[in-house]
């Protein structure tokens, strides 16, 4: 049975983007994956990024591609002045409380 998963990303992008690799793998197994970027994790959403190492994955392109892998719910908690990608929704704490209360959560 597929699960509703909430993946909370609180740390900036790493050269290997392991947080999103985890999310993509869960989506590949038909789990309902919701991603919330918050705190330092908001740096994933900063426009104009490049890959963190030669030949590495560009965090920005990876986020743009998430819907292709079935991850439609992408949110930024209190993003401030960051210009969010088109597929990312600004949320506040009450907006995600239902997910925190009911979904299986993994934090990076």
């Amino acid at each position, binding site marked *: 049975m*597929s699960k509703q998963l909430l993946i909370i990303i609180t740390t900036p992008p790493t050269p*290997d983007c392991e947080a999103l690799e*985890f999310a993509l*793998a869960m989506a590949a*197994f038909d*789990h309902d994956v919701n991603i919330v970027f918050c705190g330092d994790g908001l740096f994933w959403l900063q426009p104009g990024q490049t890959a963190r190492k030669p030949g590495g994955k560009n965090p920005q392109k990876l986020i743009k591609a998430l819907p292709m892998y079935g991850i439609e719910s992408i949110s930024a908690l209190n993003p401030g002045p960051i210009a969010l990608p088109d597929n990312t929704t600004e949320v506040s704490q009450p907006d995600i409380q239902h997910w925190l209360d009911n979904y*299986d959560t993994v934090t990076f």
Partner: protein
Amino acid sequence: MATYTLLLTHSPFNDSRHQLAQRFVEALPEGNSIRQVFLYSEAVMVANGSQQPPQGQESTIDRWLQLAGQFNFSLHACIANSLRRGITNSSEQARYGLPVATIDERISLVGLGDIAEAYINGDKVLQF
């Protein structure tokens, strides 16, 4: 009664999360069980078979191996995360022509599918 999968994502050298997870295993009430401990991201460093703690101290890997035997669960490390950190078993060593296999062979290299299946199987997945 529940079956648990423990997901560890932090290095065994930077904080006490592995020790907390180990205490969780020890304190689990009778009738519950652990299916697997899954090492992801920096947590795969625990699978390095060449660790030598200072004299008189127990390594985190030794404690995990003891608990795995005592409570009958599997120790799994994410294969991609492990290989990029130099943690490799003999078959991956041969495949990539690496100089030496570094994993403690009692820990298995597996894909993220093992965690995805834990959710499918109804395990309670706890992250430390």
